[in-house]
């Protein structure tokens, strides 16, 4: 009997990368489903605000007096936890789903750290992206993808500036990290 790894259906679904247009259609349809179920489109980074406050709570700092948490909706989210806050469940789902996809394709690998320059740039880049996502009230998912899907102008504005940012970022990458 042939091994399942050699079966053409296994290769198309689990092994080979899906074409971009398939991913695009699925993301669009799933975002519509999400909007119907929870009344707001997909977002990722707003959840990190709550994760941050839950960690602060755990070490004894109480952020509930901050301006941001005076808004009723934000206060309600802050009172939830990893299992009751829908954004948290979705973010954990992304990580677990990616793990399963990598395992199903037998492509899971713990990668070695290449250099301290790579670590510093990854951490620095992450901090800048996180700060930017909060200032912009969303990342490339919440502000760009869901913004355009909601026919909001801010999604298109985000698109223009993400191109400028990516252009500057790639110049920096070529100059300092290559």
């Amino acid at each position: 009997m042939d091994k399942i790894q050699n079966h053409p259906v296994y290769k198309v679904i689990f092994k080979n990368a899906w074409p971009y247009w398939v991913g695009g259609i699925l993301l669009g349809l799933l975002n519509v489903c999400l909007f119907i179920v929870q009344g707001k489109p997909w977002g990722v980074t707003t959840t990190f605000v709550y994760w941050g406050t839950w960690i602060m709570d755990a070490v004894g700092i109480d952020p509930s007096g901050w301006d941001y948490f005076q808004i009723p909706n934000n206060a309600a989210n802050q009172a939830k936890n990893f299992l009751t806050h829908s954004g948290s469940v979705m973010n954990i789902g992304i990580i677990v789903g990616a793990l399963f996809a990598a395992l199903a394709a037998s492509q899971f690998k713990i990668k070695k750290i290449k250099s301290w320059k790579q670590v510093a740039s990854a951490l620095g880049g992450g901090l800048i992206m996180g700060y930017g996502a909060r200032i912009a009230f969303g990342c490339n998912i919440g502000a760009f993808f869901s913004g355009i899907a909601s026919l909001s102008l801010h999604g298109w504005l985000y698109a223009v500036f993400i191109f400028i940012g990516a252009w500057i970022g790639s110049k920096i990458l070529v100059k300092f990290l290559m």
Partner: protein
Amino acid sequence: MAEVRLDCMGEACPVPLLKTQKKLKELNKGDVLIVEIDHSCAMKNVPEWARKEGYPVELEEVDEGEWEVIIELNK
């Protein structure tokens, strides 16, 4: 007719592609470049770019989550 290996293990996109483009400029006709990658998006964009440039490309899965992109400089 040299065989050159380019270590891109642990590098995320777009670094493997940029390194490949840089390395190919240093090589001559008849050389073979083997790019070692462990980032799945590089296994898409490195061969895609090299094929667009007109080089014959082979992709080999050497281990779980590790690939070698073999680019033949036929011109």
